[in-house]
């Protein structure tokens, strides 16, 4: 995962995405890429994809790239383990209409049983996990976030959705800078 600090611009998106791709290939394929070898594009539904210069002879269709922004940060990551979605959100109070709509009844009960000081944190974390999952599905908000449920096993959070199996779920809460970062990898459909 790469984090770029700076305003939300296309240049910072490209920088984060290309750095994540460079790191991935260096670490996993022992291949050193230049920024100019990498081209970032978007699919019809807005999902980011990338290609590499032809002479490198690498099929990039089996890799999944995901990018997310706040006003101050851009994050990006890449994987070949499945369909990837990443998300970064500042911890904040959600508008009441959004809070009531995106959470399931079970999620709302779970959040409202937390201490008042933790409720904004968990609301943001639940939103972010759902958003990362929806990005991995390639649909974004075209699917209603309440169709995915965040559950807690006592020690860990996990996701329940009807369509795909979760291969990896990761999250980080940065209390110092008040943001959460989430990452969801879904297994490829067979």
């Amino acid at each position, binding site marked *: 995962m790469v984090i770029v600090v700076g305003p939300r611009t296309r240049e910072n998106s490209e920088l984060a995405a290309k750095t994540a791709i460079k790191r991935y290939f260096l670490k996993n394929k022992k291949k050193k890429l230049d920024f100019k070898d990498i081209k970032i594009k978007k699919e019809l539904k807005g999902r980011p994809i990338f290609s590499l210069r032809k002479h490198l002879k690498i099929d990039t269709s089996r890799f999944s790239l995901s990018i997310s*922004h*706040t*006003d101050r940060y851009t994050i990006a990551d890449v994987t070949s383990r499945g369909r990837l979605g990443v998300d970064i*959100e500042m911890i904040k109070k*959600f*508008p009441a*209409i*959004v809070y009531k*709509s*995106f959470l399931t009844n079970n999620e709302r009960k779970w959040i409202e049983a937390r201490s008042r000081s933790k409720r904004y944190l968990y609301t943001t974390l639940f*939103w972010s996990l759902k*958003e990362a999952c929806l990005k991995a599905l390639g649909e*974004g*908000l*075209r*699917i*209603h*976030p309440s169709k995915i449920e965040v559950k807690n096993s006592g020690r860990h959070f996990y996701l329940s959705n009807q369509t795909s199996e979760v291969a990896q779920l990761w999250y980080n809460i940065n209390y110092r800078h008040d943001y959460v970062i989430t990452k969801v990898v879904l297994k490829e459909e067979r």
Partner: protein
Amino acid sequence: MPIEKRVLRIVSDTLKVPETRINTDDKLVSLVSDSIQLFELLIRFEKELGETIRYEDVAHIEKVSDIVEYATLRLGGASTS
């Protein structure tokens, strides 16, 4: 109230921008500051335009003018507020 006016009012109230600054050719994603605001806009369309407006439909819509067209079709040109 005409449907276009109702749509523009929802966008204006949600995003806290004057209606005069919203163009019907604007893409919804270019008007909002983040995905939470986009979701708020989509559920307000669903809740405030009438019972026949479905989230799954508006969530596939790109431009403000497309929302107006879709709502006009679903509401049969009804113009009550």
